[in-house]
């Protein structure tokens, strides 16, 4: 790996901006000492490869990831999460080269579950995807900087997202497990509650869904499901027209409680959202005939292939608003939800410099 020479950190920052190695914001300068300390957190040979990252086709080494993780402002404790996220993104099922190259605005939503989420202070409550949470902001940013600097995703040259969205800077959170009526998404996926797990899915920016509960209305839980399902079936999304891919749904704790109290388990909610998120073929045809396919205009077309294509999260502050994240829904593997256990068995305490 080449080393940049600079007069001071301000000069180094200017050079990094000029070289296109930043996301446009200032970065922490990846000095050899800082990178070494980050590598130490992985307890791995710095030359260890995580795989080949597209579209550039570059070998992704622990050292390269460490450089970008330093630049993002991460604490070394965050490093295993960044590494696990990249391991998930480098699996063939994610179709990373294609996802990085598309004109769609897809970006990885990173959900961290388990003890490491708590230990690292990853937020799952109020404004979890907004500013003000160091771990959320810097972990997601590290992933993005890796995608740009290792994978070569540069806007307008190789990352052809037509507009993009602010979530492409960083999009990382955890579930609010204390406020959730359900087991964490990682446990639902088969992991042990004591496992620390990263869940990734390529998504658009979150779309807000407003819903007011009425404890006197026995239909209230079904109304909530219907309004979330309508947002999933939003006929401006790729999901609606391609009828494939996944979506993420972040229910705020109050909305989740409405469903929990009504006896809905996590799988019940996923099943109902899948069942209710439909569009009439004729309606789709009237909007985008090229994508609507042939058939009876009265066919009710499911937006998602199965209930398992709903990544259901409980996150955010309690209130009127939940969120739906539609997806790109393309690529050879059609935008799946992937889980990756975070390897912390080898982790050691990071020495504190005096």
């Amino acid at each position: 790996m080449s080393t940049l020479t600079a007069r001071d950190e301000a000069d180094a920052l200017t050079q990094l901006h000029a070289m296109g190695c930043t996301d446009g914001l200032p970065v922490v300068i990846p000095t050899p000492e800082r990178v070494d300390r980050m590598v130490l957190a992985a307890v791995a040979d710095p030359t260890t490869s995580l795989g080949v990252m597209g579209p550039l086709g570059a070998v992704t080494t622990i050292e390269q990831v460490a450089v970008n993780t330093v630049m993002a402002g991460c604490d070394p404790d965050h490093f295993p999460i960044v590494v696990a996220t990249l391991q998930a993104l480098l699996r063939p099922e994610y179709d990373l080269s294609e996802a990085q190259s598309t004109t769609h605005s897809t970006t990885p939503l990173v959900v961290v579950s388990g003890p490491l989420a708590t230990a690292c202070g990853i937020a799952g409550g109020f404004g979890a995807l907004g500013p003000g949470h160091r771990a959320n902001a810097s972990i997601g940013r590290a992933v993005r900087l890796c995608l740009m600097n290792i994978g070569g995703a540069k806007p307008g040259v190789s990352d052809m997202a037509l507009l993009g969205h602010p979530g492409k800077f960083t999009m990382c959170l955890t579930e609010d497990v204390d406020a959730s009526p359900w087991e964490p998404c990682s446990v639902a996926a088969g992991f042990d509650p004591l496992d620390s797990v990263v869940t990734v899915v390529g998504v658009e920016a979150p779309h807000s869904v407003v819903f007011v509960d009425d404890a006197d209305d026995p239909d209230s839980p079904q109304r909530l499901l219907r309004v979330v399902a309508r947002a999933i079936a939003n006929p401006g999304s790729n999901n609606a027209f391609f009828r494939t891919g996944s979506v993420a749904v972040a229910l705020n704790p109050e909305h989740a409680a409405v469903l929990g109290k009504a006896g809905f388990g996590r799988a019940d909610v996923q099943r109902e959202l899948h069942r209710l998120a439909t569009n009439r073929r004729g309606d789709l045809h009237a909007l985008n005939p090229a994508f609507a396919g042939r058939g009876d205009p009265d066919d009710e077309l499911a937006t998602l292939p199965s209930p398992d294509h709903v990544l259901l999260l409980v996150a955010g502050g309690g209130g009127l608003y939940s969120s739906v994240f539609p997806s790109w829904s393309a690529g050879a593997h059609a935008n799946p939800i992937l889980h990756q256990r975070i390897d912390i068995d080898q982790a050691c305490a990071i020495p504190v410099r005096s």
Partner: protein
Amino acid sequence: MRDGIELARRDRAVVALVTEPFWPQGDLIALSNGMPDIPRLRLPHPVAGSGAEAMARLATELAPRIVAVLRGEADADNAAAA
């Protein structure tokens, strides 16, 4: 571009059709896949949605060039630029 690369890997003669704004991306994909010289022709943008008549006109204009490049009788646009 990727489709062209996949076909080239199967020893098929190919010409990738790349619209103007995607030309730099095509260069990068070709380079990163170890096929910097894979033939490609530059198309106006957009083609999708331009209507059947416009697409037919473009196809009529382009087809002889595609055939000529595939036969090795003409240079692709990237070769001409090199």
